[in-house]
């Protein structure tokens, strides 16, 4: 079993088709709906999103638990600080 099957998200946000900066703008909105410790699964197709989400995570202190790919999609699991 790999990590992606172990982590259970509380909310899913699909940013497929969106380009910078909309994935982090939408992620910020979505994370506001969660309680501390809850997990957001974010899906994106923007090739800039892996470094951008990592930077967003460092700046906002919301932990990036996993950054991976599924075919053409980038998948992120973010834990609300």
């Amino acid at each position, binding site marked *: 079993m790999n990590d992606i099957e172990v982590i259970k998200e509380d909310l899913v946000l699909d940013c497929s088709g969106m380009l910078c900066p909309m994935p982090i*703008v939408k992620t910020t909105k979505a994370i506001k709906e969660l309680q501390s410790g809850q997990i957001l699964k974010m899906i994106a197709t923007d090739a800039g999103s892996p470094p951008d989400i990592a930077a967003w995570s460092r700046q906002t202190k919301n932990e990036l638990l996993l950054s991976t790919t599924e075919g053409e999609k980038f998948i992120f699991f973010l834990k609300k600080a």
Partner: protein
Amino acid sequence: MSKSDPNAPKRLALISSKGTLDWAYPPFILGSAAGAMGWEVGIFFTFYGLTLLKPELNALVSPLGNPAMPMKMPFGPEGFQNINWAMPNLLMANVPGFESLATNLMKQTFHNKGVATIEELREACLDLGVRLIGCQMTMDVFGFKQSDFIPQAEIGGAATFLEYAADADVQLFI
């Protein structure tokens, strides 16, 4: 907040001085991205940037004086869409309606690629608490009143910007 407070959020101070479609993107992209990262953001609009505070945005793009600007066709097969069409100055300067054609091609290409519109990015900035500040002196010069702008727009001058920028972690002139 001042840098003397270690717990204060980071701060971005931008000057937006150009009102064309291509130059309208950077301040709103950076502003919304910084806002999304929890930073304080202030964008000062001066000279032609002031038009970006109007309720109805009608920013155009001009290939004239933008000699490196290629044109992309937003339709047709992928190979056709990827061609960079060089636009001779003679053509741009003499064909009526060329700027609106160029603007429409850029807007359609951006839309096809999934880039948000200027309106959407400005709305995202406002949602994220980004402060949009019009420069009073250039408003007077160009004949703008505060009532010409969106209600969230603030007004300030050079001293307002400098005081804000002095405590900013990132300052950019666009």
